[in-house]
């Protein structure tokens, strides 16, 4: 919190001194731990400064720092600037080069920490020569790359992940078709991102709170949301968790620690930081995980959230699904940086880029990020590289803005499902028979779920008015009464599934 002290404002002398004392006590990583706070000690202390340094220049520097102090310089950390110039110039034993070598190794104690100088007029490049590398465990054919992989998953976990991926894929296929047939009004698929969905869920604990964007229903699937739950929400019937309030795919589950999906993009990121702050105050052994896409990272909320999380030391894992497309906007038009991973570093957050189509890599990365976030109480950023095989949603036809063979290529050659299957098959954990059984079962469940959901009742009229506030206010009670009377008097003007 002391970082903001350096804004200019009138601070009385008393407060200034109090802050100096307080700041020495709080271990602020950006403040130098000076051995003494008085400039006079450095003048007299020969042992730290070396005997060969010119006493006169030391004295002059002391005067300079005292002068700035006398001016009431509120940036008290630069009171130590004088000392710093001295302490780094002590290494220059021979003064034959005069003022040139004296300047070279200078370090200035700016607000925020020490910064060294250079005489090279070099700009940091906008993009690095080499892009940040991608962490992966399995190659395209499902072989482990490094022979000494420390963490591999157990058979049980691997098969649960794999069958979850296949189930998600099947559910998406059928629900998409159902929308095309007019049984659903809207749907959004996660084709190509099944590994991200299931592997990240597998790496988290059920106590970790998830704030997703909308392409992460696999997490709910992993945690126990049934096919029927999905279907009920999408059809907006009375059996669904949502009382028919939200449009399809806006799932949520308090029990499963999955916050209800919200349409405005990226709003879930600062909210995640707020939740993590709350968790921190409760000292829980869990973290918050916020998912978002490459396009979402352009919103203002992304920057506010990452900056804030770093400053507040909030235990959040920010998980970016960089799938190359934001509806029709490719990443080349979304940002000019090397993806999202470098933005994490820009905010002071440890970040990693991972192969999003490699389930084992995603699992390892999330597992590790989660541990780090909780033990070190700080945010972590993961950027998972993948491809959005889906159209953005049922309202989109992506063949209009990208070539069909590009989609096909990613769908087949880089399918995360195929890759993991090859690995589990080679391990002897899976066979064709089990594969076909899984597909049959998943198909059956999905079909049944949609059929059942359609037969369910729609929500009652009362649910139009409840939950606006915690308690039903009198004006809404009145409105409902008046509405029911109107329906009774004019039944022809209203549909007959209102009750």
């Amino acid at each position, binding site marked *: *919190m002391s970082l903001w002290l350096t804004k200019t404002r009138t601070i009385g002398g008393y407060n200034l001194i109090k802050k100096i004392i307080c700041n020495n006590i709080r271990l602020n990583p950006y403040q130098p731990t000076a051995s003494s706070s008085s400039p006079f000690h450095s003048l007299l202390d020969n042992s730290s400064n070396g005997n060969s340094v010119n006493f006169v220049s030391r004295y002059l520097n002391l005067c300079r720092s005292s002068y700035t102090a006398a001016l009431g310089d509120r940036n008290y950390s630069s009171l130590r600037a004088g000392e710093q110039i001295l302490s780094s110039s002590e290494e220059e034993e021979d003064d034959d080069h005069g003022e040139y070598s004296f300047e070279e190794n200078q370090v200035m104690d700016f607000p925020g920490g020490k910064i060294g100088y250079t005489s090279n007029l070099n700009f940091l490049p906008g993009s690095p020569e080499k892009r940040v590398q991608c962490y992966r465990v399995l190659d395209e054919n499902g072989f482990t790359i490094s022979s000494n992989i420390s963490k591999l998953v157990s058979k049980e976990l691997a098969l649960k992940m794999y069958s979850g991926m296949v189930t998600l894929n099947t559910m998406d296929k059928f629900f998409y078709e159902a929308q095309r047939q007019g049984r659903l009004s809207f749907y959004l698929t996660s084709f190509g991102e099944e590994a991200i969905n299931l592997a990240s869920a597998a790496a988290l604990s059920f106590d970790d709170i998830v704030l997703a964007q909308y392409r992460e229903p696999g997490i709910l699937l992993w945690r126990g949301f049934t096919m029927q739950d999905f279907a009920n929400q999408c059809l907006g019937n009375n059996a669904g968790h949502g009382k028919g309030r939200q449009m399809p795919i806006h799932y949520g589950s308090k029990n499963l620690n999955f916050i209800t999906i919200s349409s405005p993009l990226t709003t879930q990121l600062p909210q995640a930081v707020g*939740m993590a702050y*709350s968790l921190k105050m409760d000292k829980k052994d869990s973290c918050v995980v916020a998912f978002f896409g490459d396009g979402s990272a352009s919103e203002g909320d992304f920057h506010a959230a990452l900056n804030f999380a770093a400053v507040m030391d909030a235990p959040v894992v920010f998980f970016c699904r960089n799938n190359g497309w934001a509806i029709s906007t490719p990443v080349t038009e979304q940002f000019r940086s090397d993806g999202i991973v470098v933005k994490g570093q820009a905010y002071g957050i440890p970040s990693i880029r991972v192969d999003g189509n490699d389930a084992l890599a995603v699992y390892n990365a999330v597992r590790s990020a989660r541990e780090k976030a909780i033990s070190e109480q700080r945010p972590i950023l993961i950027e998972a590289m993948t491809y959005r095989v889906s159209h953005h949603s049922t309202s989109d036809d992506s063949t209009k803005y990208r070539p069909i063979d590009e989609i096909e290529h990613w769908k087949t050659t880089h399918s995360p499902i195929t890759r993991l299957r090859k690995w589990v098959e080679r391990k002897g954990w899976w066979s064709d028979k089990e594969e076909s059984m899984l597909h049959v079962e998943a198909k059956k469940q999905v079909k049944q779920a949609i059929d059942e959901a359609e037969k369910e009742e729609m929500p009652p009229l009362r649910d139009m008015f409840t939950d606006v506030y915690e308690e039903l206010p009198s004006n809404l009670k009145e409105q409902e009464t008046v509405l029911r009377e109107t329906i009774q008097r004019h039944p022809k003007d209203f549909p007959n599934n209102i009750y």
Partner: protein
Amino acid sequence: MLGILRQKVGGATGLSSQGLGNHMLRLRPVTSALRNYSSATKEMTVRDALNSALDEEMAADPNVFVMGEEVGEYQGAYKITKGLLDKYGPERVVDTPITEAGFAGIGVGAAYHGLRPVIEFMTFNFSMQAIDHIINSAAKSNYMSAGKINVPIVFRGPNGPAAGVGAQHSQCYGGWYGSVPGLKVLVPYSSEDARGLLKSAIRDPDPVVFLENELLYGESFPVSAEVLDSSFCLPIGKAKIEREGKDVTITAFSKMVGYALKAAEILEKEGINAEVINLRSIRPLDRATINASVRKTNRLVTVEEGFPQHGIGAEICASVVEDSFGYLDAPVERIAGADVPTPYAANLERMAFPQIEDIVRAAKRVCYRSAPISATAS
């Protein structure tokens, strides 16, 4: 019910010690204010009222925390949060980077998880940078999550014009937030209002937008022992009749209540007995009290500082026309700020906001007394 103040302060002619910034009329000595109260009462500024309310609520509930720009080390941009950092520490009084969208979103997230944040906007003009979080995240969450996620958050800060701060620091947001279902919008006037309503807002399970007024912060009002008690709360959604009358109803909120009371004194001398209603709450709007008053007086003048179109006066007028049309003896008069971005120059700024004289003339007009409509009244 201990702590809930009665609606009507019978016979009280209002609080005479409301020095109002640069629109001063003579100040009556303090003793005359005390004449109407049975025992000696303390005086308290609105600033201290808000500060004490925050302090007490933070002491009572460890989940309450304050967040905003300059609320901690600086003691608050308007010193409302003075002393809280020292008392409760940086975990509960959080100084933020400059990002309204950021800290509003973070507050909403914290509220999702059960904390009770009090988010301060330096002025509600800056809340526009965070308005998506206030409306789409805070207001609608309980409904959209089918009652599973409630958001017990309070957004507070100065609203409306101050003095000489120009267009981007002077807008009133009562109409904007007042139209959103899921929010509660409160507009305190006196110290009693400030204390009681802020305590209720913090204890409320729904998101509350708490619109204060910068010029009222320094105003002193008498407060009774009941008001000073730490359990004192005012009900949300109930207006207060500051001054009873029988000839014309004047509704107002925030600083305009003071102006309306002054106008009522002037009207009294001319034989018009005005009833002044302090709305206290824009959402829910106390339509019952307003309509009951209009049915008694048969005439209505609404006063607000915000822009006229889609403002509070428009809503009150519609409500009265819907519920009490037959009782109206004259068309409703709406007094509002001028329909222009607020100019800076002092002479122009004075013309851009309602003055006491405007209220007096409007009241006379509805009473069919001769007071021609001047170019400046809206």
